């Protein structure tokens, strides 16, 4: 309990200071309330519109999680495939980089044409935005195996698959988890962008509230979206802790 408090309190202090500061700045009139609503107004909106907002949050969560799950499994699989030979890397890696450079805002309307309005477009958008860091980190982790250990495996006649699963993959795990951590945040962004154009959830709430000049509602939705991103980040940290606790310096206290 003490440990948890010791972690939460330092992170909460800047938030509280910021909230109180904002409230004050808006009340004395230095910031116009229709540009930036006071935190109390955002809080009220959260309470008043909770049914709509939380339905939207549930949809966005489903879209982001599905997109994340796809990019995690797909990204790891593609990373493993690319690591199998240098020729394969030369042939396919440039196309993997495409995922990183694709301007999602420009492509999203296309996704709507392909997948229609709804969840599938949202998932596709979350997937496209978040897969590249998983591929890149998996690949770089798999390629940086200790050469002495590779020699050791060769000496005892280890098969390629034994070398992959007993050596290269576990050695790459810390880096793969780093990729997943980045992908989690990106998947939420991708889902929101998808909802902007062709889905329902926090993204569409923001879009509608914006046209109604309801900045308080925009802020409430953004707040929930960040909370979703944080939750996903926390989940991956927990996973990382469970998997690496015994052996990796990053997870030892």
């Amino acid at each position, binding site marked *: 309990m003490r440990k948890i408090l010791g972690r939460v309190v330092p992170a909460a202090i800047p938030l509280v200071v910021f909230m109180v500061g904002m409230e004050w700045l808006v009340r004395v009139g230095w910031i116009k309330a229709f540009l930036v609503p006071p935190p109390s107004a955002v809080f009220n909106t959260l309470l008043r519109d909770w049914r709509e907002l939380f339905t939207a949050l549930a949809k966005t969560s489903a879209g982001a999680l599905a997109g994340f799950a796809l990019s995690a499994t797909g990204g790891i699989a593609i990373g493993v495939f690319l690591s199998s030979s240098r020729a394969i890397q030369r042939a396919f890696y440039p196309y993997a980089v495409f995922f990183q450079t694709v301007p999602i805002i420009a492509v999203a309307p296309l996704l709507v044409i392909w997948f229609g309005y709804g969840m599938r477009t949202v998932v596709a958008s979350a997937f496209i935005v978040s897969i590249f860091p998983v591929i890149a980190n998996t690949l770089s982790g798999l390629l940086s195996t200790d050469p*002495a*250990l590779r*020699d*050791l*495996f060769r*000496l*005892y*006649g280890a098969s390629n698959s034994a070398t992959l699963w*007993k050596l290269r993959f576990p050695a790459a795990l810390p880096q793969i988890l780093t990729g997943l951590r980045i992908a989690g945040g990106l998947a939420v962004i991708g889902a929101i962008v998808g909802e902007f154009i062709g889905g329902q959830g926090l993204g569409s709430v923001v879009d509608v509230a914006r046209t109604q000049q309801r900045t308080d509602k925009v802020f409430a939705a953004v707040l929930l979206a960040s909370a979703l991103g944080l939750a996903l980040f926390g989940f991956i940290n927990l996973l990382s802790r469970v998997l690496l606790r015994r*052996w990796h310096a990053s997870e030892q206290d």
Partner: protein
Amino acid sequence: MAVITAGRLENGGAAVRLHNLRRTFDDLVVINRLTLDIRAGEFLAILGPSGCGKSTLLRLIARLVEPTTGTVEVTPADLKFHTAYVFQDAHLLPWRTVLENTVLPLELMGTDTAESAARARAALAEVGLAEAEVRYPAQLSGGMRMRVSLARALVTQPKLLLLDEPFAALDEITRFRLDIRLRELWLERGMTVIFVTHSITEAAFLADRAVVLTRKGGGIKMDRRLALPEIRRNELRASPEFGREMEALLAAMEEES
């Protein structure tokens, strides 16, 4: 003592015959026209200045590197999995416990059986690590990690044990202890040991034969049989005959650096 000698004869080690061995990396000639006969059960130390090709030679013998020309012949010939290799650092798998690290070679060779764990425990006991089997490498000292690495090499009952400056990173007391233990293990098991080191003292203390490589071109500068007793204790380090061997090795090394 008689028992130990009998044990040695029973087990035997592998004989290694290098003939006209040459290895280049692009334009760099690392090993050149090297011919060397290593008898079964011999304890050979290989000395030489940094970068002269000691590791490359060891990797050639382990068939981790192919010769450019020349041959490496190990007899008996079906010896593929009876070679063990110990690196300068322990190189353990950090996500495996001490016991799981020690079992690894048996797993990879596909001879993982019900008694694998027992064999690994026996190997750990031989290096004095019986109580540490459930620990992870991160929880061990450098000396303990090196012992695990040694146990991992011993678990397959190798006939040829190759060591590449294995104790170089350890403090001197730990290193002396491991030197003594390695020599005992060699006496008990009768395997062939090839030990690469920078340290003249270590070579003289451990080996029955020392080969000094030339600085350039990877030839043999000196090949010397050491006239020292079979069982080595720390007292030996202060004896006149030890001093004589050191002096001979030092002279050859100095000319090459």
